[in-house]
């Protein structure tokens, strides 16, 4: 441990919330220290207050009701909470840098990249244009961006999420600050991009001897990058210590629960008694979108796969791989450009709306976003029973069945008369599952059903899927970007990349012994708990 003063020291920090929230303090009595060259991760689920701490250090809390009401934050020998706004402004960007979660909206859309990084220099130093440009070019090269001379004059819309995040990092580190605060910088990125950005941050931190305060919800990231970790639960720091200690031997009950809830990524040795005939078969399915302006995008390129009754097939891929498109084509929501989709031998892709009617009940879908999958103006009961009513089932019978389904997913009958906004994300997903099951489907398509949920809630919903699958002997098409989830849930796995099926086979085999280079890359990129932060 370095013998010098800690770079950052927080003592007994309280941050208030506006009146009427679910608790009076966002953060209560938090204390932590961070030494130079050290990486500290603050881990927690949504609503834990972890981001609040980061914002408080930078003085970026969304006042006036949300502000520090007690405690001290000491940085660089100064009491940050006592500083005026203009004093804080001189610190920000120069001594403390910060990067945020959403790269797509974090850059000014009508300002060139070079200017956005150059701003940092010009706001803190008196510097000539030529020298500024040179330093910006160096900063861009430092974060591994290709072709800096062209990038410097480009606008953000030309860059991908990962590239924009690198630009943000370049701007944050331009003046070599002593402390970098990273607020969930990789959460919105693909898993392969995430791995690259984490590597970059780690390398830069090491090279400059910077202190790093990293906010995340993912314990895998903690394992990759942290020297020490602090766990937050509803505003209170429940556990803190060296990363390896906390990960291997969590002391607090909450930490144990969180770590246990992480999908273990182990494939189960399932030997399902499966019907030999395929329930669903995709034969050379292609889907091409025509954009305004004449450009064509191939979302699916000749995909073929089968799904048997009682089986769970995982479709795994990153964003843009076409995995969601498969789900939409199978359910008939999106017409295909060519190929066949055979359901019990009949090509349903050729059927019109009328022909599809009898299949409506047999193929159903559970969606990703719990906040958008239920109509906010309709009661839960209406959401669940509408499908049945469309099929001609009498109202009373439909209602009874809805109550049954709600209890199956762990909700009471009183939920029928409530509105979706009265439920949490996890509960809404359960309602979505109940709705999908209402029509007694044989095939259930689950499109990233747990991606928007907190890790502890994820585990519960995945359990529910398992239960439901067994009870109704469903064929399940499980779409996800998370390999660990796929390993846990699926019998067979299909890996998609840019519209193509690159690997396809038994889950255990694909995930333990991948043949295709891309699959190997994907697996390598998954942040794993076992990996030691070296």
């Amino acid at each position, binding site marked *: 441990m370095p013998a010098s003063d800690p770079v950052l020291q927080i003592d007994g920090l309280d941050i208030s919330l506006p009146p009427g929230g679910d608790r009076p303090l966002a953060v209560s009595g938090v204390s932590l220290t961070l030494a130079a060259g050290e990486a500290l991760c603050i881990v927690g689920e949504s609503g834990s207050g972890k981001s609040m701490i980061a914002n408080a250090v*930078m003085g*970026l809390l969304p006042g006036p009701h949300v502000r520090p009401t007690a405690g001290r934050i000491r940085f660089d020998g100064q009491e940050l909470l006592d500083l005026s*706004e203009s004093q804080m*402004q*001189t*610190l*920000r*960007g*120069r001594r403390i*840098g*910060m990067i*945020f979660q*959403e790269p797509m*909206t*974090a*850059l*000014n*859309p*009508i*300002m060139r990249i070079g200017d956005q990084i150059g*701003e*940092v220099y010009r*706001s*803190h130093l008196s510097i000539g244009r030529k020298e500024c440009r040179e330093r910006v070019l160096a900063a861009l090269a430092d974060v591994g961006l290709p072709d800096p001379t062209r990038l410097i004059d480009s*606008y953000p*819309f030309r860059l991908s999420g990962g590239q924009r995040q690198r630009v*943000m990092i370049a*701007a*944050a580190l331009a003046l070599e600050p002593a402390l970098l605060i990273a607020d969930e910088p990789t959460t919105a990125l693909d898993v392969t991009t995430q791995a690259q950005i984490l590597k970059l941050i780690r390398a830069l931190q090491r090279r400059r001897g910077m202190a790093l305060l990293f906010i995340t919800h993912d314990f895998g990231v903690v394992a990759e990058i942290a020297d020490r970790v602090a766990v937050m639960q509803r505003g209170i720091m429940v556990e803190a210590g060296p990363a390896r200690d906390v990960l291997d031997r969590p002391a607090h009950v909450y930490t144990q629960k969180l770590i246990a809830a992480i999908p273990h990524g182990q494939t189960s040795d399932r030997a399902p008694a499966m019907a030999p005939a395929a329930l669903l078969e995709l034969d050379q399915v292609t889907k091409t979108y025509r954009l*305004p*302006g004449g450009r064509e995008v191939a979302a699916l390129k000749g995909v073929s796969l089968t799904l048997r009754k009682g089986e769970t097939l995982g479709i795994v891929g990153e964003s843009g791989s076409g995995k969601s498109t498969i789900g939409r084509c199978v359910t008939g929501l999106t017409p295909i450009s060519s190929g066949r989709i055979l359901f019990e031998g009949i090509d349903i892709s050729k059927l019109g709306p009328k022909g599809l009617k009898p299949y409506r009940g047999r193929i159903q879908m559970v969606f990703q976003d719990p906040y958008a999958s239920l109509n906010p103006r309709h009661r839960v009961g209406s959401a669940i029973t509408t499908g049945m009513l469309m099929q001609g089932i009498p109202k009373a019978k439909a209602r009874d069945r809805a109550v049954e389904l709600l209890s199956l997913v762990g909700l009471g009958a009183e939920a029928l008369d409530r509105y979706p906004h009265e439920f949490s994300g996890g509960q809404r997903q359960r309602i979505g599952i109940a709705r999908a099951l209402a029509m007694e489907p044989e095939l259930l398509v689950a499109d990233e059903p747990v991606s928007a949920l907190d890790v502890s809630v994820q585990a519960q919903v995945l359990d529910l899927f398992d239960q439901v699958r067994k009870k109704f002997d469903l064929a399940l098409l499980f779409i996800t970007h998370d390999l660990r989830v796929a390993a846990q849930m699926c019998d067979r796995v299909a890996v998609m990349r840019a519209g193509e099926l690159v690997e396809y086979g038994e889950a255990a085999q694909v995930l333990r012994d991948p043949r295709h280079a891309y699959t190997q890359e994907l697996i390598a990129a998954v942040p794993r708990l076992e990996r030691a932060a070296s």
Partner: protein
Amino acid sequence: MNRARFAARRLAQGLVALLLIVVVNFFLIRAAPGDPAQVMAGEAGAGDAKFVAQLRQQFGLDKPMIEQLGLYLGHVAMLDLGQSYRQQRPVAELIGERVPATLLLTGAAFVLSLLFGITLGAWSSARVGTWGDSLVTTVALIFYATPLFWVALMAVLVFSIKLDWLPGFGMATVGQDFSALGHALDVAQHLVLPAVTLALFYMAIYARMTRTSMLEVSRMDFVKTARAKGVPRGRIWRVHILRNALLPIITLAGIQAGQMVGGAILTETVFAWPGIGRLMFEALLQRDYNLLLGVFLFTAAMVVLFNFLTDVLYTIVDPRIELR
């Protein structure tokens, strides 16, 4: 070049719209009460059936509708909008005489409303919750709710009649022999009241819109990033927030510029300003439908032009617009 292609496409779309309006115009003229030939004859020799028939033939009013439409389209393409029945002069000529006055009025009002509206809106957005903000918001709300013609009348009543500070009638003092500079100043003096009253309503719109837009943009992620970089507050406000907030204002201004021509009709009527708005009023009084619709068509052309200019300006300002 992408921008040129986009501009060309928008221009083409505008012209198609204009063409359709010309066709609509044609049918509206036919829908006007009275037989155009009889109306024309009415002034000269009413009741003389032979004369009316002669006029009808002369103006091609006895031909089938489609042919008449074709003739009309041809005329319009040649910028011939027919004759004003009452004033016995070509409509296009009358319009041509009056256009400069309207352009002067609407131009001045446009600049005034944008300048003051945006400034006030931005100013109040930086002071949300203070008395300054409340004042601007309330005043804007009141002017937004006030009928334009009434404000004009009140302005004449107060500033011209009661206080006698400014002239409230016409564009220039009649019967005076001014030097060029003197004439310009005289016109400027006459311009004040009409331009300011016309500007007030739109000023309110821009102030409100700018304030809303600024507040919205100030909540966006990239503003937080700028703060985290330690960019001084003034620069954040000017460069990051204002520029992004002005994008929707440009579109709005383009639409409002067209609408302002409609507002000019009322203003010119009250102030007796010799522009095409007043021409339209005169046409109304005299039931001169040919002239009325000629002016109407012209205003449509002005709107198409303004919309086109706005589109082009927008593509220059927003780098995200490329291929369309």
